[in-house]
């Protein structure tokens, strides 16, 4: 463990500490405490992250040896029409699930922050989807939407007995519905917390001015929730890159490639087609998209408050 500490020149360390008013040599006594977390994170987080970039310049079929093949994987991936399609589906899922989740979460968050008596009873049920694993949710909806054995068939209602997961547009719609079902409770919690922090005096003033319910919502509640909206949206957008398990179990990317998002594309190329080099290139693109989105949202967020919240997320 001492080797981890040695790269820091003693002089500089002391300088930094003097600036912060700490006693000399304090870091030496404390750094070893960070070592276990650092070792595990470097081994299974940082090294794999660098590794995925390196692997994207190789060819590997999961069994044989790994051979360096330069830009071959990149050339193959970038010229494959599957990539723009996967990016487009990822974007669609991201944008549409944001559009469904945000208004509903705001409404529910405002509603739950209020004080209707029956509200607490409803709230007990609201958050149950949060507890279920993506696999359990996907398994359930797959059974529920089955055209022959599912709910629609059981009720004998034509409209509900469609081949929900067999038609490209319906399948995408189902993915967005199920994603919303799973994550609206989480964002409702965030908005509920945000609404509770709005000072009551603002509502009292609005009421004295004779502002109606709707006017109050748009002039006070919504502007006051600005940073909550940014936090929640950041989490939604970043999270939508990682909907792998839900979509994998629900549709496996199908029908055809209608719901083949980027993460699924990576898995299928790597672990099903055994093209690990190609899959690694997709993984690098996934990381770049994630970082670009984080930077973009930080810029949209503007002020320092949102930036610090983003650090927190």
């Amino acid at each position, binding site marked *: 463990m001492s080797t981890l500490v040695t790269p*820091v020149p003693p002089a500089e*360390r002391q300088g*930094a500490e003097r600036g912060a008013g700490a006693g000399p040599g304090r870091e030496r006594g*404390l*750094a070893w*405490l*960070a070592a*276990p*977390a650092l070792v*595990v994170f470097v*081994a*299974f*987080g*940082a*090294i*794999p*992250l660098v*590794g*995925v970039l390196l*692997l994207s310049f190789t060819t590997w079929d999961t069994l044989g040896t790994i051979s360096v093949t330069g830009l071959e994987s990149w050339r193959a991936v970038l010229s494959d029409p599957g990539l723009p399609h996967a990016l487009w589906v990822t974007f669609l899922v991201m944008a549409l699930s944001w559009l469904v989740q945000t208004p*509903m979460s705001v*409404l529910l968050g*405002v*509603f739950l922050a*209020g*004080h209707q008596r029956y509200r607490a009873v*409803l709230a*007990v049920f609201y958050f*149950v*989807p949060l*507890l279920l*694993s*993506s*696999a*359990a949710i996907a*398994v*359930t909806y*797959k*059974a*529920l939407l*089955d055209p022959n054995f599912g*709910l629609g068939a059981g*009720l004998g209602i034509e409209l509900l007995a469609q081949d929900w997961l067999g038609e490209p547009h319906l399948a995408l719609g189902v993915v967005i519905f199920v994603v919303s079902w799973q994550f609206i409770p989480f964002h409702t*919690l*965030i908005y509920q*917390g*945000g609404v*509770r922090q709005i000072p*009551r005096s603002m*509502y009292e003033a609005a009421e004295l001015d004779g502002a109606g319910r709707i006017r109050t919502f748009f002039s006070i509640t919504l502007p006051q929730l600005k*940073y909550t909206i940014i*936090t929640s949206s950041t989490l939604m957008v970043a999270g939508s*890159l990682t909907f792998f*398990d839900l979509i994998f179990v629900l549709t496996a990317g199908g029908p055809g490639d209608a719901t083949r998002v980027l*993460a699924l594309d*990576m898995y299928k190329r790597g672990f099903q087609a055994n093209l690990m080099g190609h899959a690694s290139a997709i*993984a690098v693109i996934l*990381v770049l998209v994630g970082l670009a989105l*984080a930077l973009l949202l930080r810029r949209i967020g503007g002020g320092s408050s949102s930036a610090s919240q983003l*650090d927190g997320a």
Partner: protein
Amino acid sequence: MGTTLTETIEQTPARRTTPTPGAMTRRPNWLGGLAGWLWLGIVVVPIYWIVITSFKAQATYYADNPFALPSDPTLDNYVLVIQSDFVQYFVNSVIVTVGAVAPAVVFSFMAAFAIVRGGSGRFLRLTNSLFLMGLAIPLQATIIPIYLIIIRLHLYDTLLAMILPSIAFAIPLSVLVLANFIRDVPKELFESMRIDGAGTWVQLWRLAFPLTRPAVVTVTIYNALHVWNNFLLPLILTQDPSKRTLPLALWNFQGEYSVNVPAVLASVVLTTLPILTLYVLGRRQLLSGLTAGFGK
């Protein structure tokens, strides 16, 4: 961040009981109420369907109205699920969850303590930045090298293969949340302990740990839910059925019994039961755990 999370944990119950009417009571929130009832239906209908169907016999499942209570309730589906090595998968899930979360929380706590108490040093600042970077990156993108590392370490098809990356994935957010709480512990307390001759290790476990217990519980719950529900790691790092965890077993079970809807739903109920029990026992703590670090 630290203060905001404290608020979610400590003030939510307090606010509920305060007699002062909230800002929104004067006029009824019709639209919110409508959304509230609509959402209740959207959540409760599938859950109701899962539970009642899991008690129906496969033969009567098609004859009955799907929303009618089972005319002849049976436990056959649950027996089938339990006979399909369910207990083994449950034990695997428990081992992986405990095996990952306990070290993850302990390591994160030690690292957070070091970062707060000695964070002006360059080594610890770099460590902190590395963890913060880990927050911004979709960690799923690293599964291919993780697969390679696990194979080279001869850990493929072991529970440890799922435990090690789970610890790594849990560290960034845990360190961030815990550091924000340790920062709130008054420095004078550490100083007076030090003057009394207590070393770093004693300060850590006797002072910082008890004073930040709510945060530790929150972080533990958050990580436990994530590890318990993880699907990707067992999918790529195991092949042997005896090493499956519950989410993966659920998927395989559906593949095998896709026609037997009641049995599939019984497996969903059984895999979810442990978490639902926890939800009933400690709803507030669990909800604040779910939003660890995100509560505003």
